[in-house]
């Protein structure tokens, strides 16, 4: 619902953003007034608020106006427009604002500054309030991609005459690339520009309205300037043009070259400071996926290991789990989630509240620290996000009267209960349900190694059903072989093949069983990369596709593609074939040649709900369209448990 409302709201704002550049310089007023008049209602809608400040531009942008995007950066903050009753409404359009900031800066500063202010204000909010709805753990990482698909949707629906014009104009203006800067840098720039402008305005604009006086605290300015005397401000605007240009030139000069989006999110500075691992330099990463956190491969392992004793505040159990994530010793959604919860359980057991603090608050922040450590080791899966959210809500709900030891036992048993009910029991229920769909003589196809699918196959085998299994696998993980080994050992008859032969084996398959890392509320299945192709081929061959997934992995997010949110694997893993020294064509490239090579190793993909016949979950077998119902109806109970 939210998403839909938002998609309606956003385009309007966008149009405003795109249209302004086309307006003649002489009359910025009417145009700029437009947004303010219509934005207030929008700003109140929660939907627009929840859009992330750093939107991941949809793919189209990357290709056609990359330059524009990077040119965006530090939106020059003018003092006069600090107002913003409309903070929220501008956020969605922020990337757009950035897009055409160069032309706009010539026109009306109010607009721009408004964009800047709103973005700042927004950042602030995102830190505090926003988390209620986003994953508590995820911090920025998750919140940034919170509604990516809604962005995409907006893009798709956006009527684009204005936009294309804007782009053309932009192209013609051919601004040199500029990088987005971190929040701190932007802030500094803003201050300096404000000072410069104040000086120029002091002479030019004596009638200057009260609100235009430079203020050190932009956010707090009275929300009125916008509608202040248009004449005065337009004069001021024209006065300012000269200043702005020079400032802009300066800015261009001292800006660093474009950086990856992952780095210049507002969290950049803070995350860096907090981070345990140093961020690997992202070389040769595919342009389209630069917004994703770079893979932390084995090179980080020794570094983290050597700091073993320095990280005293990380509980050993958490540390161990983090190491296992990083080293790839532990994979698979359920296993990672269980390992994490058990580590937290141990940490809670060893926890004692420091003096002058309350358990619920201190423990929450402590868990938050653990979580951010784990995220650094490897991005969390949705299911883990749900589990963390559960744990935090449990902590928050602890009655204050509880003694520390009681509280700890309560939490530990809560965690146990979560593991038992949401994973173990859920899996058992799924087994039962799924087994009813297996008949004698079936040929079942599965992809990769999903623990619940494996259990289903073994369970059905124990029930004495006669069926064959096709295990489809893919490089570079080759997880299917692990599954294959366990199945063959148990006496199932299996066929093993690689993903590229899928269309040949699909003829004889009667059912496809897939696991999932997460299922979104539009029914999109987020799972190991390759799943989408399997589902698509199965769909084309009219083979039913059953996705087996515990309900705790459902997520209210809506996602349409696998670009906005994904995880990058080790790029070297795909350039090398283990055990085949003869296939080493990529090995001895020179550094210069390597510059032309970008390796992409994605971990997940999104399967559209069209290809899914049924989702087998602990609440029964449901069509993909019912996922939002489960999310909505059981969310409360699930948080209450």
């Amino acid at each position, binding site marked *: 619902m939210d998403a839909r409302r938002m998609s309606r709201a956003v385009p309007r704002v966008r149009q405003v953003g795109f249209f302004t550049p086309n307006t003649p310089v002489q009359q910025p007023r009417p145009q700029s007034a437009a947004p303010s008049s219509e934005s207030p209602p929008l700003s109140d809608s929660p939907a627009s608020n929840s859009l992330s400040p750093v939107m991941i531009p949809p793919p189209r942008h990357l290709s056609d106006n990359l330059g524009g995007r990077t040119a965006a950066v530090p939106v020059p903050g003018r003092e006069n427009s600090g107002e913003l009753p409309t903070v929220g409404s501008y956020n969605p359009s922020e990337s757009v604002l950035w897009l055409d900031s160069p032309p706009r800066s010539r026109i009306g500063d109010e607009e721009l500054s408004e964009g800047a202010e709103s973005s700042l204000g927004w950042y602030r909010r995102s830190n505090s309030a926003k988390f209620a709805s986003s994953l508590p753990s995820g911090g920025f990482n998750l919140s940034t991609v919170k509604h990516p698909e809604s962005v995409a949707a907006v893009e798709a629906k956006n009527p684009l005459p204005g936009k294309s014009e804007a782009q053309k104009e932009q192209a013609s203006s051919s601004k040199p690339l500029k990088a987005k800067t971190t929040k701190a840098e932007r802030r500094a720039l803003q201050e300096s520009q404000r000072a410069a402008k104040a000086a120029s305005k002091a002479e030019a604009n004596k009638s200057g309205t009260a609100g235009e006086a430079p203020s050190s605290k932009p956010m707090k300015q009275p929300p009125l300037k916008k509608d202040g005397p248009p004449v005065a401000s337009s004069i001021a605007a024209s006065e300012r043009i000269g200043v702005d240009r020079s400032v802009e030139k300066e800015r261009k000069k001292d800006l660093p070259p474009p950086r990856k989006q992952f780095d210049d999110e507002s969290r950049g500075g803070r995350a860096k400071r907090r981070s345990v691992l140093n961020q690997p330099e992202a070389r040769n990463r595919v342009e389209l996926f630069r917004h994703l956190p770079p893979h932390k491969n084995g090179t980080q392992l020794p570094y983290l290991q050597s700091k*073993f*004793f320095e990280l005293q505040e990380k509980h050993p159990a958490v540390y161990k789990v983090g190491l296992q994530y990083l080293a790839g010793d532990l994979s698979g959604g*359920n296993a990672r989630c*269980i390992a994490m919860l058990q580590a937290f359980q141990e940490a809670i057991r060893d926890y004692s509240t420091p003096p002058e603090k309350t358990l619920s608050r201190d423990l929450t922040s402590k868990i938050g620290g653990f979580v951010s450590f784990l995220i650094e080791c490897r991005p969390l899966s949705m299911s883990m996000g749900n589990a963390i959210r559960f744990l935090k809500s449990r902590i928050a709900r602890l009655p204050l009267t509880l003694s520390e030891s009681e509280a700890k036992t309560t939490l530990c048993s809560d965690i146990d209960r979560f593991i*038992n009910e949401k994973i173990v029991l859920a899996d058992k229920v799924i087994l039962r349900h799924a087994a009813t769909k297996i008949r004698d003589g079936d040929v079942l196809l599965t992809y990769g190694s999903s623990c619940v699918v494996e259990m289903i196959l073994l369970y059905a085998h124990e029930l004495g059903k006669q069926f064959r299994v096709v295990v489809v696998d893919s490089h570079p993980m080759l997880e299917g072989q692990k599954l294959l080994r366990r199945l063959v050992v148990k006496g199932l008859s299996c066929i093993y093949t690689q993903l590229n032969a899928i269309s040949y084996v699909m003829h004889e398959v009667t059912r496809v069983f897939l696991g999932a890392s997460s299922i979104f509320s539009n029914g999109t299945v987020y799972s190991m990369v390759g799943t989408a192709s399997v589902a698509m081929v199965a769909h084309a061959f009219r083979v039913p596709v059953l996705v087996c997934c515990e309900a705790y992995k459902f997520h209210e997010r809506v996602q349409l593609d696998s670009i906005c949110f994904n995880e990058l694997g080790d790029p070297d893993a795909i350039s090398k074939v283990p055990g085949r020294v003869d296939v080493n064509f990529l090995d001895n490239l020179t550094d210069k040649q390597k510059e032309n090579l970008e390796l992409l190793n994605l971990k997940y993909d999104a399967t559209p709900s069209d290809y899914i016949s049924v989702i087998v979950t602990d609440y029964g077998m449901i069509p993909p369209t019912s996922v939002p119902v489960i999310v909505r109806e059981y969310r409360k109970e699930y948080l209450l448990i």
Partner: protein
Amino acid sequence: MDFQVVVLAGGNSKNLTPLVSKELPKPLLPVANCPVLNYVLHQLEQSNLKDLIVVVEGEDAALLVGAWISGTFIDRLHVEIAAVPEDIGTAGALRAISHHLTAKDILVVSGDLVSDVPPGALAATHRRHDAAVTTMLCSIPVSGPLESGSSGGKDKAKKLGRYNIIGLDPSKQFLLHIATGAEIEKDARISKRILHAVGQMEMRSDLMDAHMYAFKRSVLQEVLDVKDTFQSLKEDVLPYLVRSQLKSEALLNRTPQGEENSNEKVSSQNNQAFISRILANASTPSFHGIYSENPDGSSSTRKTHKCCVYIASSSSYCVRLNSIQAFMDINRDVTGDADHLLSPNNIIGPSPKLGTKTTVGPNCRLGEGSEMGDKCQVKRSIIGRHCRIGSHVKVVNSVVMNHVTIGDGCIIQGSVICSNVQLQERVELKDCQVGAGFVVTAGSEYKAESLAKKEK
């Protein structure tokens, strides 16, 4: 992090006579004017390990070491000194302090290790694999002439060949075979069972056991209790653990699987099995796991434990001071290539008084309060505190400890001169070790000899 650190500082070492003596036990032997134990403690302190147990052989030595530690690391480290009888070996020493060990894992470090490898790396490897024992291996130092071709005439003892034969699995994470020094005559016995389970073993002889181990406490204590003849960690305990890793008997049944299950206080046994199966399936099985699996896939009646290795990168410095040769090498390296090892607190004091036309070359270290006469030459040498050196003295590739008096016209090459030694005029020493308090008479010449007071 639930680690306890035991520093095995040793006491009198036979290998190092005449350098060590009752007054100067091995842990206090100065390396670049700073006791060797300092390097280990400094390294541990850097890693934020502040609670240590230092085990010293012999009561007297323990007193000396204790006094030094409390003087140097006062209120920086919390150190317990444990004195154990001499000649009970490293395993014996651990056995003696076994009741002090309470943490989940024990980090055992030899006190004579001069290294810049962070102990955390070893500990992290140990934890990650949930191993019974993890040992640190480093490449064998290139002893002998490095850049200094003239340093010739090193101790011949190094030719004894301290070979290690070390077998690793293909991923270089597990230790499959270890045989040290004396055991190797002609043939190495390798367990067929292990070879079968792993399929491929890499034999290395260019690695050295750095004598830094992480043990799981339960395993260590049981081994020490049951095998009470074990003397040495390196030669008895470690090879035993490695040999028995696939058939750890009842003895070691509290190893990986056991520990893991105890973490999971899941109400029903059934669920517990379920969870551990999920976890086990998710992780990449090591050969231990595969081996312990029964043919029908159910997990296992066979007990295994893991012996892991942490291989220090070849760029890091890691040498044990266990021979006179090593002593010379370390002195040279610490002032030269590996000078980052010197903890800041022993940078040279106020510079000594030098006579006219006296030259001090690079890679030298002069202690405070030393005086040198005219026209002396010092190259690649270390001179301790309060030494008095006459005129026309040449010191090359040597170590001169504290309070040494050297007469005019002496020539010292490749030698170690201990504290309070008096060299009278025109003594020539080449590749000698002069024990503490010795007096070398005027005009004498020695070559490759060990001089010490015999008055005991």
